[in-house]
């Protein structure tokens, strides 16, 4: 069946055209968002001489060695010492520099959390934390490098801003937005390549979720690498079941775009949140907290349950933990069943 391209917004036409195929991203251009960050920080650094890059021996992995070659005096390798790097970034920011502190998400959000909380977020210093290997995107590296909790942890900090872009173009826009924002920002990137989904004219605005597929029956809210899975799931639902699923790309987990989420809740009456992160405290929790206080409609969460993950190729690993499009399709059917029960008028006569 052909895809109705008119319901998609800012999604590359070739991506849209392939969404209903058996292997939707087989021919898609792919790039790890850590590498998109490395490209963007070169441009940001060129435009703003106050931008400095700090890294904890990951410049080759993330790709900021290019920044180091271009601006050697503005790149600082701290060695494998994330705690020191984070507090030093705070000291630099206090002088007016804009440090981007680069490491892996497990170390940024856990090893150095005390420094990140007390030396960066408490005084609300202008430090950007560039965290690669977020979620269980480092499939083959095993649990020590799979940051399935980073979004939840960072979201829990006061003064935090948490961004998890889905692909390269929106990653680059996120890096520019983070540099322009005055305050701490946590940027979450993938280790593994993910499809380039969006056009360069994507209207990226910090804190603003974007409807990338229209739909009226249900809304799938997704972040980072699961936006691609959400798009495939939505098209599959349309093709196989005639379900009209909206896809809301929520790149900024905090501050949450409450207006967009509540509008989706009101207009579609059911929500599925898809995140490559534990189901506690992340995007799903943020949405649930908002809905329960304002419009408690049926909702389902796609995310890592209470377990550490196995090691293996990225797509196989995330499939095992229920994060791929077939799982999103199942959760959507489930939430639609719930919605049907939830909205069925109660007959007093039947009760009597």
């Amino acid at each position, binding site marked *: 069946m052909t895809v109705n391209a008119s319901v998609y917004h800012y999604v590359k036409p070739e991506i849209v055209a392939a969404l209903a195929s058996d292997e939707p991203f087989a021919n898609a251009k792919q790039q790890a968002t850590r590498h998109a960050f490395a490209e963007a920080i070169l441009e940001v650094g060129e435009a703003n001489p106050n931008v400095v890059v700090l890294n904890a021996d990951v410049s080759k992995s993330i790709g900021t060695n290019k920044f180091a070659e271009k601006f050697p005096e503005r790149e600082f390798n701290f060695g494998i010492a994330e*705690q*020191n790097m984070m507090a030093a970034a705070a000291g630099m920011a206090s002088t007016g520099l804009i440090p981007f502190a680069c490491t892996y998400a497990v170390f940024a959000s856990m090893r150095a959390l005390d420094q990140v909380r007390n030396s960066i977020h408490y005084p609300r210093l202008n430090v950007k934390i560039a965290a690669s290997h977020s979620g269980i995107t480092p499939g083959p590296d095993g649990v020590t490098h799979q940051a399935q909790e980073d979004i939840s942890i960072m979201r829990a900090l006061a003064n935090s801003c948490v961004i998890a872009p889905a692909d390269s173009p929106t990653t680059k826009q996120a890096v520019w937005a983070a540099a322009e924002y005055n305050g701490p920002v946590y940027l979450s990137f993938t280790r593994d390549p993910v499809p380039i989904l969006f056009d360069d004219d994507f209207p990226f605005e910090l804190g603003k979720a974007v409807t990338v597929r229209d739909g009226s029956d249900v809304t799938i809210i997704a972040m980072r690498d699961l936006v691609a899975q959400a798009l495939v799931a939505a098209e599959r639902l349309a093709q196989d079941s005639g379900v009209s699923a909206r896809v809301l790309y929520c790149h900024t987990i905090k501050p949450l775009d409450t207006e967009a989420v509540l509008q989706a809740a009101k207009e579609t009456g059911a929500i599925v949140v898809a995140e490559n992160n534990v189901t506690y405290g992340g995007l799903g929790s943020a949405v649930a907290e908002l809905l329960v206080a304002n419009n408690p409609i049926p909702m389902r969460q796609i995310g890592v349950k209470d377990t550490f993950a196995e090691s293996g190729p990225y797509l196989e690993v995330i499939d095992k933990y229920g994060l791929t499009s077939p799982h999103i399709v199942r959760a959507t059917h489930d939430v639609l069943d719930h919605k049907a029960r939830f909205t069925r008028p109660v007959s007093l006569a039947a009760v009597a």
Partner: protein
Amino acid sequence: MDDTVAHLKLKSIRYRKSVLAMIKHGGAGHTGGSLSCVDILNVLYNHVLNVSPDNFSHPNRDRYVQSKGHSVEALYAVLAERGFFPAAHLETLNTFQSHFVGHPTRKVNGIEQNTGALGHGLSVAVGMALAAKLDSSPARVFALLGDGELAEGSSWEAAMTAAHYRLDNLTAIVDRNGLQITGPTEEVNALEPLPDKFRAFGFAVRQVDGNSVEQLLRVFLETPFETGKPSLILARTVKGCGISFMENNVKWHHKVPNDVEYASALDELDAAEAQLLEQLNPNAEVSSWN
């Protein structure tokens, strides 16, 4: 005794009175550690740091980071006397909605960084010193570390980086009073040989009596001790310094004096002040400041 030293000694006595008054009034505070480091702060703010309420937003000001944030009462006493805020504000210490809380925050004028989580301050200072080098700024950075705090491994990460980047615009001062909350540092988790450790980490090290304003004046004038190396002043201090019954007594780490103890402490400080004034050149400028 020259006028500068006399002047500073008098200030130290008055800072100690202020520390005790603050803690007595606020009902909590780190008495012993504030009294051990107050002479260091005195010399820094009155004779070393190029920082004042007038230049506090200037990028080239010297920076002071108090990594041992719990000894904040000493810092408050000195900043108030230096005019960063009215001394009357100190009466709000520990009260609801006051910015004068038990660890330093940037909400108080004159304070560069929120501290209190130990093992952060030297890293923050490293960041400031790197920034000063990058900006070709003459700003110097000073960080006061507790000795018990040095068990935090991040302090040594920071020490490595300070030496690696040849940060001779950075001076770390260790308030080596030898005691931490559960006992002597050498019994809790031994630090010695501490000078050798810092030398091995790439610092140029000097040791002084950290409660002697004469020795502190001299040693700060000599920083940086070596071009291309961060400086470390191992300041041998007495916890509770200046109050006989508090000195070297670990129970005063976080103890508030009762009325009798407070009166007795003030008597000792009054006597020391009277004795100092007697020795002074009657023409010396030692105008009161509070």
